[in-house]
């Protein structure tokens, strides 16, 4: 038996090729970076602009006039207050509600487990507006419209999937041996959970907390229906500003609103990259 031993050296594996391909890669990379970054760059420019008329590639006149304008005119304080109270509350409450269930999904066998797991997905597929309208009527009867807890509760809906799936995968990834070693050393099951399971699965839980927090910070549709006018959060304020004032105001506000998030990004980067997100979604 003899093969015409033709090695098939056509193209080589990734980037290990001629400069041409490398250049192509660099161009694609640049294009992608521009696609992502240029809008944000434009926004930053607008935020420090006093006058920018059309054909200019840079503003004709820089200035921070709009910053003081925004601080003195817009209701930032109130909106920031509500955002920074609702978002952490939603995050913590959803953790309280969901983490035990996440643990149950990871460690226990019980009837209809899979069904419940998938039911959570289904909850995500119903268009939110449809739910909010119905929820609004329901909250109305309970006197929750325009209240802090009304807003918190309605935002809880969005947290369910993330807060159960991702921590559940994180719990499941804790080796049983580590828990057993603690039992062996004399710890009660509850003690084992708090001393061993929880700390080890913390990175995954942090990812879930961050996503929930960001989701809540970004939420506007539900808050608009349930919360306003008493509870206006930052995104709602943003809608107002964008639709009522010239560009720089929206830009200034955007920068204000995005800064904490981006700081969060830099802090949480390594957890996000560690694959907990995907583990959660694949766990089904």
């Amino acid at each position, binding site marked *: 038996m003899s093969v015409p031993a033709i090695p098939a050296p056509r193209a080589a594996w990734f980037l290990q090729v001629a400069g041409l391909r490398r250049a192509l890669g660099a161009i694609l990379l640049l294009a992608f970076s521009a696609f992502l970054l240029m809008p944000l760059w434009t926004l930053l420019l607008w935020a420090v602009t006093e006058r920018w008329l059309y054909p200019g590639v840079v503003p004709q006149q820089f200035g921070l006039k709009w910053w003081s304008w925004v601080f003195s005119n817009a209701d930032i304080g109130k909106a920031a207050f509500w955002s920074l109270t609702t978002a952490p509350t939603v995050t913590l409450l959803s953790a309280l509600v969901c983490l035990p269930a996440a643990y149950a999904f990871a460690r226990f066998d019980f009837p209809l487990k899979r069904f419940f797991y998938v039911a959570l997905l289904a909850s995500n597929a119903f268009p939110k507006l449809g739910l909010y309208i119905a929820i609004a009527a329901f909250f109305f009867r309970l006197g929750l419209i325009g209240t802090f807890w009304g807003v918190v509760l309605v935002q809880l809906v969005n947290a369910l999937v993330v807060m159960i799936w991702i921590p559940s995968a994180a719990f499941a990834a804790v*080796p049983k*041996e*580590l828990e*057993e*070693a*603690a*039992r*062996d*050393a*004399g*710890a*009660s099951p509850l*003690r084992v959970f708090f*001393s*061993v399971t929880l*700390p*080890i699965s*913390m990175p995954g839980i942090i990812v879930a907390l961050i996503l929930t927090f960001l989701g809540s910070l970004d939420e506007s549709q539900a808050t608009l229906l349930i919360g306003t006018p008493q509870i206006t959060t930052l995104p709602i304020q943003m809608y107002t500003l964008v639709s009522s004032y010239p560009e720089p105001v929206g830009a200034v506000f955007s920068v204000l609103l995005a800064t904490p998030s981006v700081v969060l990004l830099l802090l949480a980067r390594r957890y996000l990259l560690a694959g907990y997100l995907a583990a959660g979604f694949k766990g089904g």
Partner: protein
Amino acid sequence: MSDVTFEQIEKRYAGRAAVADLNLRIRSGELVCLLGPSGCGKTTTLRMLAGFLTPDSGDISIGTRSVLNLGPEARPTAMVFQRYTLWPHMNVFHNVAFGLKLRRLSPAFIRQKVKDALTLVGLPGMEARQPSQLSGGQQQRVALARALVLEPEVLLLDEPLSSLDAKLRVQLRDEIRGIVQELGITTVFVTHDQEEAMAVADRIAVMHEGVLHQVQTPGELYDRPATRFVADFIGQMNFLSVQPGTSGTLLAGPLAFGVPQSAVGTEVAVRPEDMQFGEQGHPAQILRVSDLGHYREVLFRLEGAPDLAPMTAFVGKSEALETPRVRVRRALAYAGGVLLGDAVPLSAQVVGS
């Protein structure tokens, strides 16, 4: 005092027995190895003793009392695992001190105990290290310290060395044996490595498919394996399929053996070192010689016996192989998988004619 007794223990998974009718008594202070191929039920047995699994039937006792109704935290056992041995979010000190702290001992006492335990396993002063800063062998030592610091009556080790390098494995197994003997702790050591088992165990319990085949000292286990499985699993073994000869003898080609009784399907088993090359015996054809260091492994065929599979012999480095003639020094006979008794090598001429 800390004897461990398994009585008619049975554990089934989805109808299949992972451990079936296990009766085993481990004496106080003894080191017993559970040995067997993957999936034979070693871990299951160990975990039932530790309290992580509940047997379907039977009883387990430590000392004189049954421990079946106790949770793992209440049993006087401590376990060292194969993988994931340390808690990655605690440093060495906190790993070792964890169980002590649960017992609300004074901090000074805990510090002293941890220090002693780390010294015992050869890691003095490593308290502040994170598990990730330790090598695999050091991690297993800390895990050992963590188990020992609670002064358990019974120490359980589930393949504690299998993720380590060969050299390190040898070193650590000797250390473990030393420590355990010094402290006089009853120890159950699970392994699938027979060399490891032979090196550390007072007695070895060989399991196969959930069934305990034999419990013996390493030497006796090697010399008189009670079942064909044990004979095959422990060390190397040549199995010769034999034909009944005249007057109660068995014939394997030119070789003849005398057995007390015989049955259909009887086999004769010969250890490679019992195949003796020399001036006398049957001419052999040497197929391959591997130099394994302090001895050589010789693959050979007996001349005039085309039906016999090639056999293995261990030959010292000084012995000559120029005149390849083979004599069997010692053999055993198995029937139905069970030891029948010695198969006495007979001079072929005597019988064959």
